[in-house]
């Protein structure tokens, strides 16, 4: 017997809306089974996972800190993926944005003025966008595969950052430790509401970017161009849209947003450059983009959910004493069920019996 995925003729609007909730329900059931097998009270475990992080204001701030880079990067990636440009290198664009944005506070620490921060953010955006332009140029000019080039450039960026903080940019007063000097107060992205927690303006940037791109995609000609070129390049050409310009547009937007996320994270949440500044935000954002179904507003929700699963994981580790491996397994289950449920909206499962399979084979052999 064989299992096949068959495309449904049309997708059910009802199940498209219900799918995330079904996925959540299945995750809860599977998670409850896993926690019971580990000898933990499943209700308590799920409570710590999903409710505990939302109970306190400071924790909501932390949620925003964690979600901001994910959302910023993912909304940029949605433009790429909708226009059929597979940018896998957001992690690299994030890092280069952070490096470019840090030029002022690291090399000119005495230059302190209100203008420093806006300049840093602009340079961060420029850095990410330029780094994103490399795979775009290679694709347009040489027809290279952007999945490979953008991914490879991630490693280049990581090693460049590593070299910078160990070499030229190492803090002269840092006991030889690989990190830059800490940014002066004028180079630190302010907190939104510092009395209650440390969420910084990066989260505001993320929300603004998501709304702006949602508006662009759904209400402007440029958004229409993105969708048409993504779904049918040929139709796009007939409409007079340029494929090459779209490649650059998508990579520049997503690179720029990743760069903005990078400098916001460094300037707001970390306060200096270190050998690693991202626990894989650029890659996690790919998941966020698809969890949010490439819709910028959906991505806000998806980014918050993924961030919640990190925070909930910590709460579960502390309160139940489970290992962080359990926590990650649970996170994996969540993503699996969400993506699996979405797949079943578009496809249905068909069981092909032994005899039927033979017929198919026979026809194929002929």
């Amino acid at each position, binding site marked *: 017997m064989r299992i096949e995925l068959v495309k449904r003729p049309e997708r059910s609007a009802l199940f498209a809306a219900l799918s995330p909730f079904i996925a959540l329900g299945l995750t809860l059931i599977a998670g409850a089974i896993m926690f019971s097998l580990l000898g933990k009270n499943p209700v308590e475990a799920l409570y710590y996972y999903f409710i505990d992080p939302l109970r306190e204001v400071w924790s909501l701030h932390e949620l925003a800190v964690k979600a901001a880079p994910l959302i910023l990067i993912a909304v940029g990636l949605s433009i790429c993926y909708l226009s059929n440009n597979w940018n896998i290198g957001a992690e690299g664009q994030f890092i280069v944005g952070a490096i470019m944005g840090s030029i002022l506070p690291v090399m000119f620490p005495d230059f302190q003025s209100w203008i420093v921060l806006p300049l840093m953010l602009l340079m961060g955006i420029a850095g990410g966008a330029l780094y994103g332009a490399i795979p775009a140029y290679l694709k347009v000019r040489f027809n290279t595969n952007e999945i490979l080039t953008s991914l490879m450039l991630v490693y280049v960026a990581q090693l460049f950052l590593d070299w910078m903080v160990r070499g030229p940019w190492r803090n002269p007063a840092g006991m030889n430790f690989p990190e830059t000097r800490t940014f002066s107060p004028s180079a630190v992205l302010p907190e939104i509401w510092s009395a209650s927690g440390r969420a910084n303006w990066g989260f505001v940037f993320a929300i603004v970017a998501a709304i702006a791109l949602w508006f662009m995609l759904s209400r402007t000609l440029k958004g229409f161009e993105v969708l048409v070129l993504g779904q049918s390049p040929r139709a796009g050409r007939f409409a007079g849209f340029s494929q090459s310009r779209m490649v650059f547009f998508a990579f520049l937007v997503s690179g720029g947003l990743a760069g903005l996320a990078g400098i916001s994270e460094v300037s707001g949440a970390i306060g200096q450059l270190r050998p690693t500044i991202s626990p894989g935000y650029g890659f996690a954002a790919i998941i966020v983009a698809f969890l949010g179904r490439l819709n910028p507003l959906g991505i806000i929700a998806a980014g918050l959910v993924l961030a919640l699963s990190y*925070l909930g994981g910590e709460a579960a580790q502390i309160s139940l004493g489970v290992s962080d491996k359990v926590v990650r397994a649970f996170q994996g289950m969540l993503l699996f069920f969400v993506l699996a449920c979405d797949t079943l909206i578009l496809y249905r499962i068909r069981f092909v019996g032994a005899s039927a399979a033979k017929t198919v084979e026979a026809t194929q052999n002929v």
Partner: protein
Amino acid sequence: MYRDYKKDGIVPRATTKRNKSMKKTILSFAAAAAVMSFGTMAAEAATKACFVYVGPIGDFGWSYQHHQGLEHMKKELGDQVETAYLESVPEGADAERAIERFARSGCNIIFTTSFGYMDPTNKVAGKFPDVKFEHATGYKREHPNVATYNSKFHEGRYIQGVIAAKMSKAGVAGYIASFPIPEVVMGINAFVLGAQSVNPDFKVKVVWANTWFDPGKEADAAKALIDQGVDIITQHTDSTAPMQVATERGIKAFGQASDMIKFGPTTQLTSIVDDWGPYYVERVKAVVDGTWKQQDVWGGMKEGHVVMAPFANMPDDVKKLAEETAAKIKSGEFNPFTGPITKQDGTEWLKAGEVAENGVLLGLNFYVKGVDDKLPQ
């Protein structure tokens, strides 16, 4: 303070944990609801000690030893203490959240066990003046509730150097180092000085792995060093991979942070074991008794913070010499950084009989003579 939980309708967390019966789902739901609102209240009975680890507790090196210390402390203090830990917490934006979460979840004392947690620890400490913070290997104590602690691992490395020079035929040892911070540089220098006390021409080759824990990279470093002709390997990284490579290639090696004899029964000569247990007992006890004070502790073999694993796989005369050296360091009779010592560039560092000051050691950024490497600056 005694509270009649039943009367108050509050179910303490301990009860919820014990209730594993799946039949009573409804009951446990009610219990969980109670935990939601009164969880912190129920936790106040015992002193809560919390630990943040940079690696997994199964690394058999740095984080593993800290966790062993936690287990030891739990055993010693029993009911007086409740513990919690977070493993594999990245140094960066996540560390501050992890530490703050602990501070808010009712921890009375929080141990942050990696250098990279220095700034987040001090930042959170400023916000929670009633919680005690203990930061391992750092130097910043910006608030009265932050203490720092570290161990003189270099004392053990001197002994390793003595053994290496006795055991090596090539007269060259390979050293897998993590980051060029003073602690690591100090270890390399102590190792060389120990070796040169036996063989004045002894050399050390260094590979910077630029990681604390990465079995793949560490194994590659070990292979590269062995290919360059070293016949003893020592490491200042935390995985057991170099020990395993040394075993495959049939040379001797030293373990790191924990006793790694299981991973190289015929390979390990000895290992520097970080024994954090006694320190954790002392500091948590101080919180229980209300006598905790800020301090900066740098304990070595004398204080029992650094322990050598049994000397193995070596002839009796080498073992005897190693034991004598260890005894001299332990009694305080001998300091590995005692002159005459020449720097790598040939200039004099310490005159005969002169002992290095702690301040200089804690900011050490130069090699002594005999290190075959350029210190990354």
